[in-house]
């Protein structure tokens, strides 16, 4: 009996027949700096971290901007190029001619094309400043797009707050940009307002804008997590035709964070869109957490301490029965939508107030103790009186004089 024979996967019931993975832009270096709970690591630490991020096989590593942080950005760009990392280097830039010229020169010096994410310098929520101000801002953006194209830079035009932009605003802003050299656009859900349905409508509308100009739509998506939907929105955006998604490890960013890069990769892997060994993922995420001194909470999907633990009797009994059939994959999947082994983990059975005899038998076997009725009863009694899952020390204490075994 195989996994495919046993599991009826409703996710593939009428979804897309086959999806290919989008390109991924790693924004950890940029976004983690804005997470209020994170510390600001020294440049030397970030240089070391870059190498770990590159292990994940992302397509672009965006490392900073061209403003006051330019010296550090340059050091990080140089590291990517000199170390011949697999990922291509990228930066973000304001609509500023000298900065664009500097990037063109740096690309030449480093011998690698640096990808530029160009901020337009205004957003659809700034219409209150008046028509003249908006017209001037559009003009500045357009000049920068044309200037960057003239320099031969590989530019993506960012559209901040696209998820709340009026369709007319998008037409008036993107239309001239597409006519004047912008080849690629990144739709940004700046305040995390989008739902999957809204994301789909926005992406389809923007694709149509490209198509009306006879251009092949080249779209990126990036979004924040204020409503808890950033990951679902990213997957929807890709399903609707976005070819590249931006994300940050652990979703580190301002407020409630942004698209979590590792969960994006995990979902693409589980959907069959990525065929990649995922065992490095946990180590890289742990390194990011350590570098920025943020905690991976117990209930964080896949990476948290509780992700593959159960103290519930019904669940434990089923896992043990699957193990007895000699099918490791079955035990790994019977009460988990994510196979632990794929990410270098294993299913753990604990003993707590909701435990049954199976949990206790499993614990005793794992610890090389014979499952006598007295031992089983002593542990179960302690578990039922507890208000939490028992620690190994508490279980041993329940066994009384045998605690030293």
């Amino acid at each position: 009996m195989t996994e495919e024979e046993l599991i009826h996967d409703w996710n593939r019931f009428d979804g897309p027949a086959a999806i290919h993975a989008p390109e991924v832009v790693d924004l950890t270096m940029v976004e983690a700096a804005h997470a209020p709970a994170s510390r600001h690591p020294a440049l030397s630490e970030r240089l070391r971290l870059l190498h770990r991020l590159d292990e994940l096989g992302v397509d672009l590593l965006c490392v900073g901007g061209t403003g006051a942080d330019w010296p550090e950005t340059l050091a990080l760009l140089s590291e990517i190029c000199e170390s011949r990392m697999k990922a291509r280097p990228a930066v973000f830039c304001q609509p500023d001619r000298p900065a664009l010229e500097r990037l063109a020169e740096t690309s030449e010096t480093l011998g690698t094309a640096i990808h530029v994410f160009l901020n337009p310098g205004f957003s659809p929520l700034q219409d209150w400043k008046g028509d003249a101000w908006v017209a001037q801002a559009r003009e500045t953006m357009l000049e920068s797009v044309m200037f960057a194209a003239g320099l031969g830079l590989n530019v993506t035009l960012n559209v901040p707050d696209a998820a709340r932009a009026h369709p007319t605003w998008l037409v008036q802003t993107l239309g001239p940009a597409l006519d004047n050299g912008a080849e690629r656009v990144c739709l940004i859900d700046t305040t995390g307002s989008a739902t999957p349905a809204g994301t789909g409508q926005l992406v389809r509308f923007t694709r149509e804008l490209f198509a009306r100009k006879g251009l092949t739509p080249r779209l990126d998506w990036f979004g924040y997590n204020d409503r808890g939907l950033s990951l679902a929105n990213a997957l929807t955006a890709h399903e609707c035709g976005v070819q590249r998604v931006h994300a940050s490890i652990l979703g580190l960013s301002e407020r409630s964070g942004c698209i979590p890069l590792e969960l994006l990769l995990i979902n693409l892997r589980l959907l069959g869109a990525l065929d990649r060994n995922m065992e490095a993922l946990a180590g890289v995420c742990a390194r990011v957490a350590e570098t920025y001194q943020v905690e991976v909470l117990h209930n964080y999907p896949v990476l948290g301490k509780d992700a593959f633990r159960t103290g519930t009797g019904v669940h434990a009994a089923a896992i043990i029965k699957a193990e007895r059939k000699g099918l490791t994959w079955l035990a790994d999947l019977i009460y988990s939508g994510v196979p632990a082994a794929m990410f270098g983990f294993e299913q753990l059975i604990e003993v707590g107030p909701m435990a049954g005899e199976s949990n206790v038998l499993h614990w005793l076997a794992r610890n090389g103790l014979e499952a006598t009725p007295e031992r089983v009863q002593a542990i179960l009694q302690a578990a039922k009186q507890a208000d939490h899952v028992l620690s190994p020390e508490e279980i041993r204490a329940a066994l009384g004089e045998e605690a030293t075994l």
Partner: protein
Amino acid sequence: MEFDWNLPDSALLQLNQQVQLQDETLRDGLQRPSAFDPPIEAKLEILHLMEALGIHGADVGLPGAGPRAVADVTAIVNEIVKHNLKLKPSCAGRTLKVDIQPIVDIAQKTGKVLEADLFIGSSPVRQYAEDWTLEKMLKVTEEAVVYAVEQGLEVMYVTEDTIRSHPETLRQLYTTAIECGAIRICLCDTVGHATPDGVKALVRFMRTVVKDTGKSVKIDWHGHRDRGLGLANTLAAVEAGVDRVHGTALGIGERVGNTPMEHILVNLKLLKVLDNDLSRLQDYVDTVSRHCKVPLPHSWPALGRDSFRTTSPRSAERLVELYELGERQLFESAFSSVQGALLGKQPQFAVGPRSGAINARGWLLQNESNLSPEELLAQAREKRCVL
């Protein structure tokens, strides 16, 4: 000025104005491996907060788990009766008499009609591990539902792991349960496997199964967040037409947990599907966090410490400008898509090592200090963390 790309999704608006909420914090939530099972006084405090938020029902425990569970569930149901709460209580149990009887006993003792949420493992993975045949599962279903209904319980029949179950198995199990008297069915993503597309496909199929029985039976959705999609799946279930969705405070539950109830509430409010008063939402998550000893993450959407805090110079410039102009609504809107006012919160400027003078200026607009923006900024840079 803002355009809401989410609202033209008229299906959501037309179908589900009546969607109800079922709180699983005191049952499934307490199965989180690192949560503490709080004392009864704490459970009652949580219960009243559910009521204050306008949550419709609560699964208050699994009495079959032992004497402590029986005592707690009895006390909770008595509290609901005593205070005439609108919250409808239910209890979980396997499709076994040994789990149903304690629910019957509590219903008789408290004089309250209880909903029994009777679950069976339905996926082929579980069937194979347990060596169950479909015939056996149908027999167990029939015996359990008939017994529970005869004893005066309102039965919600629950198939575990519905999202990985074969359609024909589901059709037979649910049809049997409905014919035996179940008035509600629950589709479960027990293992957090679903994607929104999968949820919609499943709900659409189950609506046809229910329709074919000719009975008026409600459909619930119960999801977990192993892939990080619990909330999106729950909203997809609402969009697909379910009658009730389940969640837990802080998303506590087995493994990485269930759909967070607070995020269901916030999203349904923003989508104008529900109009509940959310002013006690922070109390609700803080209380569960305190009693169950589960930390509230700083970045937890809408309710974490950082959800309405910015240290970023890239955001601060336009925010400070709006704040100084006194444009409160525009300021809140530019800050986050979740309006702080909904939750009694104020967006805050903060100063960190990557902040600019503009952040310090914003902080000084909201706080009193003798320091200049430059001095504040220097302190943050020296400490390499947010002040």
